[in-house]
């Protein structure tokens, strides 16, 4: 792999949602580039397109126009989309664990189905990952018996189990009770330190400062401002980002 090939490249991406009465331009003219090992945060008000943007990167959302390349390979058909999805894994706001499987089975399912390994090996890997996120004691519990923070940590273990090159996180702590936020953020920080390429949609500005090198501010489906995280958050250039950041300070968000 050429070191200069970006890990993620979005070129002139547009996404238009059509309903019977309205046409929504969820993403317009989005250009993004990320190096391998980079951690980027997507910030912006709700409905600004940041989650949609994240979902286009692993093909959960198709794009209306433009191109998406992962490690230089563009998404073109359903089959390449499937192949590229193998390089990414995703963490969701509402965890989205498989409710009918135990924590261990949740983590083991994808490796067992995707890779030529035995069920025992898949369970072994899952077991190691669960202990790395501190949940060995809960491996045989079903998701609904776990707290939100524990569920999200299972979801992280499940994402890591497919050994992704890119980890996509969609508001990973927004659905958590405040006291459970840190256990998830600490874990994500550790993964970032390990050199994982990550895209994180977040409202946690403190977290963004601590782990991300770059930040992209979305508003109205467009990337309004991009830059190094410290600079962007300390010296916002556009009035819209200034307004967004001061609105966050008005609330108890960090």
């Amino acid at each position, binding site marked *: 792999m050429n070191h200069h090939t970006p890990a993620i490249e979005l070129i002139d991406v547009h996404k238009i949602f059509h309903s019977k009465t309205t046409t929504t331009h969820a993403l317009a003219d989005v250009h993004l580039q990320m190096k391998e090992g980079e951690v980027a945060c997507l910030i912006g008000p709700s409905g600004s397109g940041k989650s949609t943007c994240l979902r286009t990167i692993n093909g959960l959302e198709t794009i209306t126009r433009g191109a998406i390349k992962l490690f230089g390979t563009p998404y073109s058909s359903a089959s390449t989309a499937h192949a590229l999805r193998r390089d990414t894994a*995703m963490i969701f706001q509402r965890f989205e664990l*498989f409710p*009918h499987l135990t924590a261990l089975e949740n983590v083991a399912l*994808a490796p067992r189905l995707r890779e030529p390994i035995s069920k025992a090996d898949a369970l072994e890997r899952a077991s190691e990952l669960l202990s790395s996120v501190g949940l060995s004691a809960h491996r045989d519990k079903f998701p*609904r018996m776990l707290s939100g923070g524990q569920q999200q940590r299972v979801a992280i273990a499940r994402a890591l189990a497919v050994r992704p090159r890119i980890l996509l996180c969609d508001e990973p702590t927004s659905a958590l009770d405040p006291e459970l936020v840190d256990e998830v953020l600490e874990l994500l920080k550790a993964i970032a330190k390990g050199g994982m390429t990550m895209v994180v949609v977040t409202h946690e500005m403190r977290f963004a400062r601590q782990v991300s090198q770059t930040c992209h501010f979305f508003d109205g489906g467009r990337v309004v401002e991009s830059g190094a995280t410290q600079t962007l958050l300390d010296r916002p250039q556009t009035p819209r980002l200034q307004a967004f950041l001061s609105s966050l300070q008005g609330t108890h968000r960090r």
Partner: protein
Amino acid sequence: MHEQKRSPLWSIATSVLIALIVFSLWRGFHTLDYQWDFLSLREYIWVSESGTPGLLLHGLWGTLWVSALSIVVGSVIGVAAGLVLYAGNSFAQNFARFFVEIFRNTPVLVQLYVMYFVVASAFQLSAEQAGIATLSLFCGAYIAELVRGTLLNLEKGPQDAALSLGLTRLQIARHVTAPLALRRLMPSLVGQYVSLVKDSSLVSVISIVELTKSASNMVAISFRSFEVWFLVAVVYFVLNFILSRCGRWIEQRMSADLQPA
């Protein structure tokens, strides 16, 4: 199993209701002034002289195999049509929709007659084949709607998660969607099966030997219509009770995560 607390009013209301039913039955039978004789039905259950099963058991066997076969074939048709309604192309969807509407919105009795006198003549089908085909299609039409509705209302999150993990459509269907959909489907599916067992009595009109047909014959011979129909009702009840219980058991097996720890 956990007991639910109910207000004492509930048990009082239930007692009153049971008392009312018992009273009206007792009064009805009293006014009827009928000499009950259930023992005379023994010969229809088991012919002691020849040591062979009687009419009732023959009928029961008929009901069992007609229902079982219709349930199996109907489920296959229903799941297939349901999947088409949920995710087929528009031509296939229209076709499935047409099938479902025809079989849901016309009486089974008419469907049976048409199948037996028109379709069966055209294709040289036996009465049994025509009967089972009708019940299967009828049952399938209802199951198709259940399947479509269940899939439509299933939360999409776990499916998205599976997709994001790089699983194929088929793997997701097999390991995520099917188990989650099936346990949602179970209660209404069992309800459908219970209905089908009862509706199987209708195939007696095209002279298939099953419980209801046997009962009419027993009445014709014995003139003991009250006893015969009561007995037959009890047999249907027991059949369906067992069916419901099996359904409940399977449902619980499939939802280990929903059981209280």
